[in-house]
Each structure stands twice: as structure tokens, then as C-alpha cells.
């Protein structure tokens, strides 16, 4: 079986975890599928070209991870026209693909955002980091913005849209400047995903601001470890089951492409949400790698 795997941006840890989950599934189920990996490096246009080329090549199936397909659905047309089965992961459902396997970004933010605000006792000053270019982080930020309306005593000291291309350094630099500007008035940092949360913690620590509460979303291993540290500044994240998404995509392709089963019977809904539990200092032990 020939499979094309199209990354929106393979530099993202989450896409790597999806792929790792898929690879683990391949290995454990003893498949020798031929998988070619195509990275779009964050460019919608490259995603389109990659899909076109995969369709030209005539692969048996395509998996797409974390591309904002509703914002570039034209990209899919070639593959759909060639009747190639497509499973997408966290890319937003568009007609023509079998299913989008994802987690609910609104729900994740709805879990972790009030948790942070409640931990602050409903009042205090926060830094609000956002990232509009990616649909998932955008939705999380939008939910946070809505929730904030219900917390009149929480003051947003500064809101910053992270520069996607060099997000780690951009967050580090920005937090340094905020540490200068606000000093110990900062009570908390809301980060749209774990890596900027980690970068914020580094910068705050270096400035001696160790009492700040930080949250992230994704539940990458380093983040979980940070939450679990007794004096860790990260108080919560949401654990996204990326590996499971990868394995799930593999299973469905096996059923539909190899075993030729009817997609309608295999796949429960167009958008399939997997569970993403909130990780806090109380339950983090359960999420540490065994």
C-alpha cells in the first residue's frame, strides 16, 4: 500500500506525535506500507502542490495533518477527483474527505481557561498570548476571550500575537520585555500551546518572576513534566491524544483501502473528536510516561 503523508508543518511537535502514533501502529500491526512524507513548511500553497503531486503519483491513500483545509479546500480537488481516500487529522472537515480526526479546540480551551482564572481566585493580571494563523490556537484564544468577559476582576496586561515562524524566540523576547515592563504585577500567562508556555516560563524565571502561573495546551511530554514538578510554574495543560489520532487514521485506512470495507460503516461521523483531558498538578502523574 502506497500512502502519502502531507504535513502542514512538520516542525510542529504535535504533527510529529501524530506521525509517531501512526508509525507505532504500523509497527505493532506488522504492516510494511510505503509511506512518503511531504512537508508543506507552513505554506498553504505547498500543501496544495503536495496534494496535487500525490494525486498525480496515484497513491492509495493520503493522510493530511493540521492543514487548515477549509481555508484552502481547492488543494484537495485533485486528490478527490482521482478518488483517493483521504483522512485528515486536525484539519477541519471538508466535503470529499473520509473524516477529520481531531480534538475539540473550543472544548479544550473551555477546560483549561476557567481553571487558570479560578486558580487566580478570579482576580489578577494576566498576559494573553494568541496565535491567529492556526485555526486550533485561534479557536482556543477566541474561547478565552469570551470567558474573560465573565471575569471582570481579571486584567489583561498585554495581548500579543506570536510570530509563527520563529515562535519560540519571539515568545522569549516578548516575555522578557513584559517582565521588564510589568515586573511582579504579572500573575499569570495564558499561552495557546505548550511551547510558548515553556518559552514564557524560561523568560520569567530568568527575570526572577517564579510565582507566575502559566498554562498551555497540547500535553506534550515536557509540558506534563513541567506541570508535575512541585515548583513548576506551569499549572495545567490539556493532553491531546495525538498518537491515538495517528493510529486511528491508520486503522481506518486499513479497513477501507486494504480490506475494502464500506466507509460509511467504518467511520462514525465526519468529524471525530477524541477525548482531551485536563492535566493539572493533581492528576499529572497519570500522564507521565510509564
Amino acid at each position, binding site marked *: 500500500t502506497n500512502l502519502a503523508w502531507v504535513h502542514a508543518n512538520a516542525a510542529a511537535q504535535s504533527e510529529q506525535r501524530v506521525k509517531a502514533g501512526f508509525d507505532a501502529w504500523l509497527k505493532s500491526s506488522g504492516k510494511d506500507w*510505503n509511506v*512518503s512524507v511531504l*512537508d508543506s513548511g507552513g505554506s498553504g500553497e505547498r500543501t496544495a502542490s503536495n496534494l496535487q*503531486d*500525490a494525486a*498525480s503519483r496515484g497513491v492509495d491513500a493520503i493522510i493530511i495533518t493540521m492543514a487548515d483545509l477549509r*481555508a484552502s*479546500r*481547492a488543494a484537495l480537488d485533485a486528490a478527490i477527483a482521482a478518488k483517493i481516500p483521504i483522512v485528515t487529522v486536525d484539519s477541519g472537515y471538508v466535503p470529499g474527505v473520509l473524516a477529520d480526526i481531531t480534538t475539540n479546540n473550543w472544548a479544550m480551551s473551555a477546560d483549561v481557561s476557567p481553571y487558570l482564572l479560578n486558580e487566580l481566585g478570579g482576580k489578577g493580571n494576566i498576559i494573553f498570548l494568541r496565535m*491567529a494563523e492556526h485555526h486550533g490556537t485561534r479557536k482556543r484564544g477566541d474561547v478565552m476571550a469570551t470567558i474573560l468577559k465573565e471575569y471582570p476582576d481579571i486584567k489583561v496586561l498585554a495581548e500579543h500575537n506570536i510570530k509563527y515562524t520563529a515562535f519560540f524566540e519571539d515568545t522569549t523576547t516578548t516575555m522578557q520585555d513584559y517582565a521588564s515592563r510589568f515586573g511582579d504585577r504579572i500573575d499569570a500567562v495564558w499561552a495557546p500551546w505548550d511551547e510558548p508556555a515553556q518559552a514564557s516560563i524560561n523568560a520569567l524565571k530568568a527575570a526572577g518572576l517564579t510565582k507566575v502561573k502559566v498554562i498551555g495546551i497540547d500535553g506534550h511530554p515536557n509540558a506534563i513534566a513541567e506541570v508535575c514538578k512541585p515548583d513548576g510554574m506551569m499549572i495545567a495543560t490539556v493532553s491531546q491524544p495525538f498518537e491515538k489520532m495517528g493510529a486511528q487514521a491508520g486503522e481506518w485506512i486499513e479497513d477501507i483501502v486494504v480490506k475494502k470495507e464500506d466507509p460509511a460503516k467504518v467511520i462514525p461521523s465526519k468529524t471525530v473528536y477524541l477525548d482531551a483531558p485536563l492535566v493539572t498538578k493533581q492528576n499529572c502523574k497519570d500522564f507521565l510516561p510509564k
Partner: protein
Amino acid sequence: MTAQARPLVEAKEASSRKSRDQWLLKYSTLLALLLLFLGFALTVDRFLTTSNLLNIVQQISMLTIVGAGLTFGFAAREMDLSVGYTVGLSGILVPLMLISGVPLPIALLGAVAAGFAVGAINSLLVTLIGIPSLIATLATGSILYGINFMSTGGRAIYGGLPDGYLFLGQGQILGIPVLAYAMVLFVLVAWFLMERTIFGRYIYAVGGNLKAAELSGVNGRFYRSAALVVCSLFAALAGALLAARLGSGQPNAGERYLLDGLATVFIGMTMIRPGTATVTGTFFGALFIGVINNGLNLVGMDTYVQSIVKGLIILVAVAIVSRTTKLKLL
């Protein structure tokens, strides 16, 4: 007599050999492209299908248009580092206008106007105030980046785009993508301007030796400005087509066009008239990059390995001409 005859014959021989060498040299990068193409055609299944060849053309069309614009800039010895953001600007502007109900022709005129405006500002900064184009366009690029992201809040614009517009980016006429027609049109116009008109001749002249051109009565300021305006104009129109292709306006969609556009021009500068930016060269440069990307994708090579292989292919392709000609691009 004989003593004299010998060298004459030698000279003749040498010169015909030399002229063959010259020819080989002029086209060695092109030859590399041809070999690459043949290589893929022979080894890669489905490479040589009509649909795949049309894919390639479609994939390179915007890049070729941006590169053709940059060629004017290079010819005049002006660098436009803002083209990527100009692509982004009109790629947002046109969808925004269309969504708010503006008819398609007017929206496209909007792209022309945006390109013209950016080009006019760049050339004002460069030729009137005298800021070197490298710095001026770096700064206007930063400004455009801010405008693009501010006007969209950083998110993509999608939905509600009229079919006529999407047809430009995705449709076909007589089985050939509309984008291919657009590319051919731009390349032909650019080629004609540069190679067959006094306008193009003078753009090359101000780039070749500004002082000599001005002392010959050429309006240096005008032609340098014109080159910068063409850069922006072509980029803006490429941006409008790009958004049509993606079916969506994305504020950061244009960014790769700066470096990739430069790459096409540089590769183009190794052929046709080595050391000089030419429209034909740029076109083949874009084709070169397009064929590599597509071929390696069809082979199913890992992206990262592709990147490595692409670098190596470029090096090999330009090595021959570089060994034998003094190429000065800077």
C-alpha cells in the same frame, strides 16, 4: 605562405570549437534542466502524463510571474525585497473586496492599483529620497506585513468567493489551466518589453551603468522607478491569482515568494546571457525548480531529503557555466 597558412587554419578551428563551447556554456544550465526532465520522464511513473505536466505548469505559474517582475528589478540593478508581502497584500485585498460584493473586474483592478501603489512608494523612496532599494523595500516589506496581518487579524479569508474568481485559479480552458494562460501571457509581455522595446533596453542600461546611461540622455530615475513598479505590479497580480488558486486569502501566503523568486532569477542568470537577468532565463529557472519539486514528490522522496537533493541539483546544474564564465551577480 605555408608558415602563415597554418595558424590561420588553426584559428578557424579553434574559433569554431570555441563557439561550440560558448554555445554549450550558454545553455549548460538549460541542458541540465533537459537532462533532469528526461531523467524523471524515464524513471518516474506518471511524470510524463498530461495531467502531471499541467500540474507543473500550474504550480510554477505564480512563481514565474513574480520572478518575471523581479527580472525587471534585477536588470535595473534594484532589488525588491517586498514582493512576498505584495503577493500577500493583493491575495488578501482581492478576496476581501469580492466578499464585500465588489465585482470581479473591479477587484482585479484593485490588485493592479495596490501593486502600482506599492511600486510607486518603493520607487519614490529609492529614486527620489535615494534610499538604497535593499533597505527601502526591506522597510516597506515590514510595513506591508503589518498591514496584511492587521487587516485580517492574522486569519485566512475563505468562503463566499465568486466562481468566476475561483475559475481563474482552478479552472481550465480547453483542458489547460487558466493559470497556464496567465503565466504565458505575463512571460510574453515581459519578454517583449525587455527584449524588443526601448523601454526594456533602457532598463538594462540603467542597471548596466547608470552614469553612462544618464550621460547618454536616458532618464535614470524614470527607468529605475519603472522597474520597481513592474516588480510590485507583477507580484500583486500573482497574489490575486494565488488566492484564487488556494480559494482563500492568506496573509502569509506570499512570504516564500521572495526567496523562491530570487532563486528563479539567479538560476536564470546562469543561462541565455550569463550574468544578466533575462525573462527567458527566469522562466526556465522557475521551470527548473518546478520540475525538481514535482519530480521528487512523485518519486516519493522525503521532504527533507528533497531539500538536500534540490540543493545538490542546483549546484551541479550551475557548476559548468560557473567554471567557465565569470558570473557576477552582486
